């Protein structure tokens, strides 16, 4: 069941800039199908909030886009190609676990992950840490951070390689309100710079006014796409 993207003021722009296209995506884990035939197109330069109850398939969908879960059937096309490994340097991924080493400081963590993308420039790491309103000089190991700080540092990690597409899974979960609002503001700024962002969240209200589109998932399929939260 394909739900077409929203018509916008500039229809030409919509047609030309499809950055992610999913066709009949099925993901099966043993006897359980987490995704059952998802088909959709997503346009670049927008922030998509993906909402739905637990078990709707949101995390599986995001992980499939990130290349972490190979489709059982169907096709994913990102940045014009089905070979997700080829474009992975242009993706940024963040999940509820921090994806950071607890025993190292924030800067040490980012320095290491930057290396994986071929970035040897320390200044970039410090810059990203400052962008999420944290202190690059802080020597405290990440394991001792508050959840809000940890999620922000994880976001900094996801931004290291200046990705064209950002995939965030529950970034606001268990995070204090100030950190959450700061992250939401930062995401708005990143979107305004032309990046495409997918955010899976239970806290839709945080993205009200920030997200371009709300994508509702249920039982492994996309059931509705609305421009505002009230559009439900």
């Amino acid at each position: 069941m394909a739900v077409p993207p929203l018509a916008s003021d500039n229809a030409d722009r919509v047609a030309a800039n499809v950055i992610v296209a999913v066709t009949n995506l099925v993901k099966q884990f043993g006897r359980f199908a987490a995704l059952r035939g998802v088909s959709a197109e997503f346009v670049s330069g927008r922030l998509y909030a993906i909402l739905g109850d637990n078990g709707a398939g949101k995390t599986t969908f995001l992980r499939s886009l990130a290349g972490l879960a190979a489709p059982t059937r169907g096709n994913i096309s990102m940045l014009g190609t089905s070979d997700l490994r080829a474009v992975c340097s242009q993706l940024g991924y963040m999940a509820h676990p921090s994806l950071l080493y607890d025993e190292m400081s924030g800067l040490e963590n980012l320095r290491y992950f930057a290396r994986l993308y071929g970035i040897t420039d320390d200044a970039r790491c410090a810059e990203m840490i400052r962008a999420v309103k944290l202190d690059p000089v802080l020597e405290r190991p990440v394991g001792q951070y508050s959840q809000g700080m940890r999620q922000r540092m994880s976001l900094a990690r996801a931004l290291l390689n200046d990705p064209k597409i950002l995939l965030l899974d529950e970034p606001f979960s268990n995070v204090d309100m100030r950190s959450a609002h700061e992250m939401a503001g930062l995401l708005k700024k990143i979107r305004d710079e032309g990046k495409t962002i997918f955010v899976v969240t239970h806290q839709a209200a945080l993205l009200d006014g920030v997200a371009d589109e709300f994508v509702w998932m249920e039982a492994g399929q996309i059931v509705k796409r609305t421009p505002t939260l009230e559009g439900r």
Partner: protein
Amino acid sequence: MSGFGITRATLAKDLRLEWRSKDAINSMLFFALLVVVIFSFSFDPTAEESRRIAGGLVWVAFLFAAVVALNQTWARELRNQVLDAYRVSPAPANALFLAKALGNFIFVSVLEALMTPLFIVFYNLRALGPAYQLLVVAVLGTWALVVNGTFFAAMSVRTRSREIMLPLLLFPITIPALLAMVEATSAILTGEFSARFWIVLLAAYDVVFTMASLFLFELVLHAE
């Protein structure tokens, strides 16, 4: 972005992390010591006999110590799902593998360096053959254990019963290497025959499985 650069960075990171959480190292070292003592109580032969069986005892002891160490290798990458961050990046899988294998090699070598003097003391060992060859056997043999151990540890870490899975997968495949290590060590200690064939076999084993691991690790890392 070279594979070697990433291997070096990963190895440095692992060594740094290992150093900071010293508990793991300390308990490993103590375990290694215990293994030697238990073996010495269980097999208490005369000096002549001990030279014949020491080869087997030493390597079996190393094998058990190595398995306990190897099981820890990937555990750190699973905490906070850090492995996902690696999988999502363009970094080549075999760079990660090589870093882990080298880290394990260093770690297991440290354990062996602790256990060996104890064995020499408890068994009154003295090499009657060319002793320098023992070093060659130690390096080749340890790498044989570590290269497959690291690979299978990665495979077993995402299965149920992961602790038992590693030895289950590792031991059968390691049999020819173990035989070679034991025979070579016995040959050198007793001086009765040449260890040359066994050393060549070990080298062949190392080459085959290092290449297989580097080539196939991509599949293991990116499996679900």
